[in-house]
């Protein structure tokens, strides 16, 4: 009964379970390559439970397309061992973006093309940086755990912006996925299985939520959505460089510190929204 009463509990528990079980299976099977699919798997589990459906194909409407973009992210992530070229990232982001924007492309207004350009560049940069951070060593302030923690920071920062921007469903999906990614990040931090660079493509579904919010719901604060990834990416880069060399012998501690710095940075836009209008987050 409690599960049915609160729409957040079931998706959160299911994503947590999916993240933990999948990370465990990857370790048992000694197949870290498949770990790259984890963010997409968590996304799909969260989607099915938050939206209460597996949409029919071909999907009608942006929110139904989200599922198939997440599925494409999963397949691309599994194939990412072979395709890591930045052009692949850019093409994947553009494909998802144009599919979401299709109804508006039929009758474009003045704001559409700048928004598309920003979302494409922003999305590509985010995936490219996630890939680079995932491929870097913990001693360099990177690694799989930091890359996953950055996705978590982005989701955690995005959730309140989604609520303010007219999508309580995106808030729930982001929070549910946070729990699944949290389990995976913890597993990666402890076991260092090397989820690696391919995991970036698995974040395609998360980017598509942002695309939908900006292009279809159209009630969000675009500047804050741009500021969020800039803050997180810049913080990761700065933290990786500025952390004292003394931390180098403890790569896990270094990864935790970089991740925490990203998390703090991610919440700054939400803090700004709160002080601008405290009523925004009233349930």
């Amino acid at each position, binding site marked *: 009964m409690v599960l*049915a*009463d*609160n*729409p957040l509990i079931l998706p959160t528990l299911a994503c947590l379970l999916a993240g933990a079980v999948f990370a465990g299976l990857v370790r048992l099977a000694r197949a870290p390559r498949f770990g790259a699919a984890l963010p997409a798997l968590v996304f799909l589990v969260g989607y099915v439970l*938050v*939206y*209460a*459906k597996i*949409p029919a194909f071909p999907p*009608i*409407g*942006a*929110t*139904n397309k989200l599922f198939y973009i997440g599925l494409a992210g999963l397949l691309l992530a599994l194939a990412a061992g072979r395709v890591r070229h930045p052009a692949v990232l850019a093409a994947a982001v553009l494909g998802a973006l144009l599919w979401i924007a299709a*109804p*508006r492309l039929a009758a474009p207004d003045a704001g559409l093309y700048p928004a598309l350009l920003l979302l494409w560049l922003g999305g590509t940069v985010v995936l490219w940086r996630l890939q680079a951070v995932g491929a870097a060593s913990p001693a360099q302030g990177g690694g799989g755990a930091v890359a996953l923690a950055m996705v978590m920071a982005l989701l955690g920062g995005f959730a309140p912006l989604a609520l303010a*921007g*007219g*999508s*309580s*469903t*995106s808030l729930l999906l982001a929070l549910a996925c946070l729990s699944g990614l949290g389990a995976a990040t913890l597993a990666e931090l402890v076991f260092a299985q090397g989820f690696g660079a391919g995991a970036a493509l698995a974040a395609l579904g998360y980017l598509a939520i942002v695309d*939908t*919010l900006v*292009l*279809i*719901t*159209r*009630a969000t604060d675009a500047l804050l959505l741009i500021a969020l990834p800039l803050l997180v990416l810049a913080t990761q880069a700065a933290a990786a460089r500025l952390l004292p060399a003394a931390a180098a012998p403890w790569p896990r501690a270094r990864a935790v510190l970089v991740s925490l710095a990203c998390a703090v940075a991610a919440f700054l836009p939400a803090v700004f929204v709160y002080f601008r209008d405290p*009523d*925004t987050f*009233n349930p």
Partner: protein
Amino acid sequence: MRKLLGFLGTLLFLAGLAAPARAAEYTIDPTHTHILFMIDHLGFAKMIGLFTDFSGNISFDPNNVTASQLHVTINTSSLDTQNAQRNKDLKGADWFNVTEFPTMTFVGRSYAKKDDHSGTITGDLTLLGVTRPVTLNVVLNKIGKNPLDKKEEVGFSARGMLKRSDFGMKTFLPAIGDEVQLILEVEAKQPSPM
């Protein structure tokens, strides 16, 4: 010549008697028409929403109800639930998705008379690109001349129910109810005589 004119006159008179009565055409009066819906919120109470921008036509003859016609178009972005944040959410991609589906339509398909003042209309409701049959229980309140503007007018009250999941709107099920109660109070007028 006089006989011929008299014959033609009689013919026209008889033709007029033999012609079937034509249903009157009415246009929905947006000022005095209200389209509301109610949906369960977490089991505590019903949330009420309404649409403020719509248009439609009714073709109605009380003596031949089955030949009626009804077509209503609702501008989904006119949704109002008395809360700005909720309005923003409900107009967004997860619910009514007004960017991709700016209108919802109801087209009457079959009309059944229960008694002189009530019956049902079953029609096709198209919402979020999905078309499903919806039946409305209709009460004919009054038909006649409006005492203020002297136009011929008809007034109905209609009630119905749909499942939003039938239209693919499954967000927050079951916490937010699946069944949506429809409440329509409709006044429609004939155009002014030329």
